[in-house]
Structure formats: C-alpha cells, structure tokens
C-alpha cells in the first residue's frame, strides 16, 4: 500500500514536470522571501518510548539566487515554537532514584538551511525544494509529575534541565508559486523535515507555509 502511494507521488511529480511549460526559470534574479509556517512536530524524549505530536508555528525568511531558469539556490533562517509535549508515563531518575510519572517539555528551534529549488513554470510555478542545514533546539526543563505519599510533586529529573542542543536537518517541500508582477510572487507549500538530534532525541516536522517574495536583478557581480 505504502509502495503504491510512493509510486503515485513519484508519478505526480513526473507529470507536473512534464506538463510544466518548457520554461527556464529566473536566471540572474535574486529574491527575498518571508514564510509564515504552521507545523506539527513529532517529538520523543528520554525516559519514555512514546512520541508526542504537538502543533507549532514560526517564521522563515530566506534569500534565493537563480543560477538557471529552472533552478534557484539560497538559504533561509527559520524559527519555530511548539506547544508543550506531554508523555503520560516516563521513568527518569530524580536524585538518583527512578521515578515514574507524566512528563512535559516545551521545544523551540532555530534553523539555518541551505536550499535548492527546482522551478517548473513561468507564471504558475510548481516547485520542489530540497533543504539541508543545522539548527539549535532549545528545550525547557522537563517537568515530571510524580505522586509521593498521596502528594503530587512536580520534579525536574536529573540531567533534564533546560538545554540547548544541535540538530542536523533535511527537508523536502513541494509547492506552487504565482508570479504576480515582475517583482512580487506569492506561493504555498507543504513539506516534511527530519531533525537528527545531537544529544537530543530526533524530531520530525510536517509544515504548511505561505510565502511572499520580492525578486529583482541585482548587480552583485
């Protein structure tokens, strides 16, 4: 079933590429874009095998440069904040004694991503975007709710204070842009990303964005 869906998606991409006008995109053009993002993050944490899915939102801004009429390269900075992720049962040491309870934690990220955009049109522009980069993940201190002698305590497990960790990021985004004038373009896209945590559990993201960008011919070189 999954293989069938993959083939269908691949066929759709190929069809989009085939149906797109034989146009080369915007060579020599530079563009600056702003993207509000809504996201769903699938987050894991230590002390539990469960994963939490939490909504989030953020903002991304980037610069692009048309190296070919069909290919842009560039980079973007994206900042996101997610709702608190909760896990019903987690077991973590508190003062070296294992304790079990509900775990909650909030995550924020800032990522710097390089991107390559395949552009398959002129006025209406289907896009396929590949992104790779690195980011910082800020996690709040973990809060473990545990019952001790019929009292409910909120504890911070050992080694689970607020922390800043590094992520390696890879993402794929598919969208559709509409060039309104020689300068202004709007678009929408959906994407998926995988954040490989260095010193923290991995995180998966799915996002939907709208974008507005301004393009111009620069004289940098």
């Amino acid at each position, binding site marked *: 079933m999954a293989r069938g869906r993959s083939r269908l998606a691949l066929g759709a991409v190929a069809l989009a590429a085939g149906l797109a*006008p*034989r146009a080369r995109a915007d060579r*020599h053009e530079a563009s600056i874009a702003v993207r509000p993002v809504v996201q769903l993050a699938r987050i894991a944490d230590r002390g539990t095998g469960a994963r939490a899915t939490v909504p989030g939102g953020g903002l991304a801004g980037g610069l692009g440069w048309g190296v070919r*009429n069909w290919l842009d390269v560039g980079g973007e900075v994206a900042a996101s904040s997610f709702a608190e992720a909760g896990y019903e049962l987690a077991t973590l040491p508190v003062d070296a004694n294992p304790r079990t309870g509900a775990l909650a934690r909030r995550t924020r990220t800032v990522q710097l991503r390089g991107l390559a955009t395949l552009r398959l049109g*002129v*006025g209406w522009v289907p896009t396929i975007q590949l992104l790779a980069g690195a980011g910082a993940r800020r996690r709040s201190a973990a809060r473990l709710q545990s019952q001790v002698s019929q009292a409910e305590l909120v504890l911070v497990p050992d080694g689970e204070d607020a922390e800043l960790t590094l992520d390696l990021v890879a993402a794929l985004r598919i969208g559709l842009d509409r060039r309104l004038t*020689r300068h202004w373009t709007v678009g929408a896209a959906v994407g998926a990303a995988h954040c490989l945590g260095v010193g923290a559990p991995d995180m998966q993201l799915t996002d939907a964005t709208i974008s507005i960008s301004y393009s111009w*011919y620069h*004289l940098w*070189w």
Partner: protein
Amino acid sequence: MYSQHDHGVATRLAIQAGLALLALTAVAAAQPAQPAKSEMEHLVPPQGGAVDVPVHAGTVCILSFPEQVARKAIASSQDEFEINPWNDDGVAVRAAHAKVSPATLALATVSGKVKVNVTLRVVPPSEPAITLVRFKPASAEEAFAAQVAAEVAKQVAPIRASLARDRKELDATIRRRAEGLIAERMLSRNEIVRLESHARNDDHVIVHVRRGLLFGDDGFLVFDLENRSSAAYRLAAVRVLADGRDVAGETRLASTALDRDAALIGVVASGATARGIVTVRSVNAVLNRPLALELAVPGGKGAIRADRGIVLR
C-alpha cells in the same frame, strides 16, 4: 501639316510612348537579353511613309501589306535586287550579293491606303537583318507615336546597357565600400565592453545586456530578448537614453517569428530568445555615463527598461 489639335494629341502620345518605353526599359534591364527579331511592323500614315530595312545578302525579305499591292513598283536599282510579287499582298526582295549598295523601292496598295518608300540596305551577317516587314495603315498620330517610340528606344539603348552594367557591379561596389568602412573603423577603435544588466516586464519577457562594442565613432549594445510569455513579443521601438536623451541609432533583431507589420523591428516567438543590436551614435559623448535601454511594443504596453549596469568605458 498637322493641326494644332493633332499636334497636341501627337505630343501626348509621344510622351506616353516615351514613358511606356522607359518603364519597359527598366523591366527589360532586369531580364536577360532577348535575341534580335528578324521581323518588324511598320505603321504607315495616310500620307505615306519611309522605312529602312536591313537585309542579308542572299536572304529573301518579304514585304507584307494588308491588301493587294499595285504591281507598278518603282525601284532605284533593279539589277542588284531580285524583286518579285509574293501573292497579291506581298513583295519578295533578295540582294544578289553583299556588295550591293542601298536601293529604294516605292510601293503602294491598290486602294492607296498604304504608300511606302522602302530603303533596302545590305548588312554583314554579324548585324541583325529583317526577313519580314508588315506594313499597316495607321492614323498620323499612331504613326508619329511609333516613330517617337522607335527613336526613344534608339536613344535609350546605350543608357539601358550602361544601367545594366552598373547594376551588375552595384553589389560588388557596395560590399567593397562597406568592407573599407569597417576596416577604417576597426583601425580607429575596436573594443568589447563587458556589461551585465537584466530587466523584465510583467509578462515574463526579459532583456539581458551583456556586451557593448566600441567601434570607430559609434558604439553598439548587444542584447538578448528572452520571451518566456505565452505570446510573441513584437518589438517596435528601441531607445538608448543618456541623461534623458535618446542616442540610439539603427536596431536589428534576429527575429524568431514572422510578422507582416513593416513597422516592427522584429518578433520573438513565445519560449524563444533572440539577439538584437542597437547602435549608439557618437559614443564618445556618452562614454562613462550610465545608459538605459528601453524596449517597447506597439501601443506601449509590455515595455522593458534596463537602466542599471550599462556603462560604456
């Protein structure tokens, strides 16, 4: 004697005949030379006419009339020409040998409508000769016009030959002069200037200016016109502005589509890119100054203006 009216008509006919002949001359100049005809038609006015007929020795020449010929012909020299009737309405003449001196032959039809004095002249085989002369009665105006036309043709013949020769040499002359001009300009100045300027309109038509040329007293801007729209881009005007003043000269575009509108510089088909060149006149006056290249289509919509990065140094 002609009346005043006849003279006016004859003058008009002469002018018309001359004009017609000049037109025919122009047409004929463009055509390959025709072989000399061996027959002629001669219009005879009511009062009679004279005609000069070149003949080859030993060749029969027929003098043909529209009606019966009176048998009483008067010949100046009956010994050197054989003169015989040819049916009722013709006379056959033949020169006995090449040394025959010109002779005249007076002929008339029975009704008297055609009266001619024919001068027979033996010409060498290298010159064209006549083997058939058709005499036709005509009004005085027609006969006069024909005479004028014949005389104009005679006068115009050397001019026509000269014109044909000049035309033949014209292409070579133009090419030689153009090559000389180019060589002189190259000696004066011949530099390529790298430029980088791009601009587009809202219809996805983009102009790329990448190169300039300094060539003698003039300059040139080389541009590529990339049409990514769904319709042909019809280039009607190109301006090169320096301090608000248009310094553009001739423009050429290597069109990728045809258009019958002669007012257009060229057409770039949808999805195609075409190269163009615009002359910058007296380029010394605009050296080191920013230039703006403006392209326009008929009606002014879809204009493109590249105004950064174009400086000829």
